[in-house]
């Protein structure tokens, strides 16, 4: 089963980072990706542009509506995702717990809907 981790974090934690700081961030995430790869569960990941650049689209009401901005504005915003492929939710949660973002933000775990389609 594929599971997607949606990584919510507070952008204030990452304001004013120097290139060296970013290198350290990448190193930690690189180690996590390495661990997922080694376990053979890694599918995909991405680091997202800041939420200010978000565009929200809806077709609700039968009409295409495009809006500048994110879907919901809270302190935490969506900053990235991981897709992993593991047998069940227990295994997905075991890995979500180890994601660096879990220590300071929130991770939304979503099972893939592809298999049920």
């Amino acid at each position: 089963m594929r599971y997607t981790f949606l990584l919510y974090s507070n952008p204030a934690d990452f304001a004013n980072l120097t290139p060296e700081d970013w290198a350290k961030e990448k190193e930690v995430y690189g180690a996590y990706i390495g661990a997922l790869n080694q376990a053979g569960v890694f599918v995909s990941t991405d680091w997202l542009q800041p939420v200010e650049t978000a565009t929200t689209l809806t077709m609700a009401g039968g009409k295409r509506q495009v809006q500048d901005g994110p879907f919901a504005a809270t302190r935490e915003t969506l900053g990235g995702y991981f897709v992993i492929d593991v047998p069940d939710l227990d295994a997905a949660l075991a890995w979500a717990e180890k994601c660096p973002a879990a220590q300071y933000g929130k991770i939304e775990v979503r099972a893939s809907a592809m298999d049920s389609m």
Partner: protein
Amino acid sequence: MSPGERAAHVARSSYGRLLAILASRSGDIATAEDALADAFRLALEHWPKNGVPDNPEAWLMTTAKNRRLDVMRRAARSPVTTVEELPDFIDDVEEPEDIPDRRLQLMFVCAHPAIDAGLHTALMLQVVLGFEAADIGRSFLVSPAALQQRLVRAKRKIKDTRIAFVIPARSDMPERLASVLESIYGAYALSWLRDATAQDMTGEALYLAKVIAGLMPQEPEVLGLCALLSFIHARQKARGGHQVYIPLHEQDPSQWDAKLIAGAEKLLVQAAQTQNLGRYQLEAAIQHAHMLRVRDGATNWRVILALSEGLCRMFPTAGAHAERIAAIAEVAGAEVALNELERFQTSLESVFQPVEALRAHLLAKLQRVDEARQSYSKAISVTVEPAVRQWLQRQADGL
């Protein structure tokens, strides 16, 4: 020792002592850290040129205090002292015995209930041992930037809400001490990905445990924790590093650190004299019993069962139950143990890796091969440590 090595040596043993003194009155850890970092930097500049002072701690202390004064003067736009005002080799500064050890107070501040429990360990590693957030983040796979922000906020809270640098009152002591010990234990347990590039913090956790055992020798649980970490750390070399996982019963006891074991045994005896048993003493005693059993067959499984039953009554974690059920398997057989395990498993909210791995082991012992195979793959799916996953896979392949 070269001046550089001398500075590094002084740094480890003195950092927390000096920081505790610098920060205790104002409660301002961040400013004290900056001043102390300046003092260490100046030491590295001056000691190689002029020689290491007779009393390096006092030199660092005086320099840090001067630097902090500079910062305050600069803030007040008044004249600034210069580097020439660095202390001359120790006439007008405090003697080492004049520098009291307030690291204990500092540890109680770091593990204060008003500070997010998830930060206690990192805060202690930073302010008592002087580690940078980036190093802590790399060791525990936590975002360095986010950790840094949270540590800054915690230190600001300590200052702004005036969390006092004191030893807790007797009535608060059990709870407050428990959270200090928990965060030291946490430093040992946190490193899940045994990556060669990350700094191994287990030695630092043991160091913290030794410091607090030296400062509170009257507290049996403090001695118990120090004994526990010593027993575990003594096996580090025999455990196979980060590449492979060698469980205790497959280890070569001649690779264990005999000196560390002897020290831990002494601590346990010392703790037992208070006749006040606790979680860490019991966990240490269980580790000790396992090691004696493997090394010279001196302990039997009944002793381990009795100890783990005691631990379950006192501190009923899932790990303690796994320990108890493993001992039942040896004393009463795999069938009895499996029944007990499955009964216990229904009380768990989620899959607990050690319990599932034990279940697979028991099923294998009972020759229930298909179920064992299923159970192993379940256990493997929730195991994140690569070496442990490989070991479990080998067990499954051997069915």
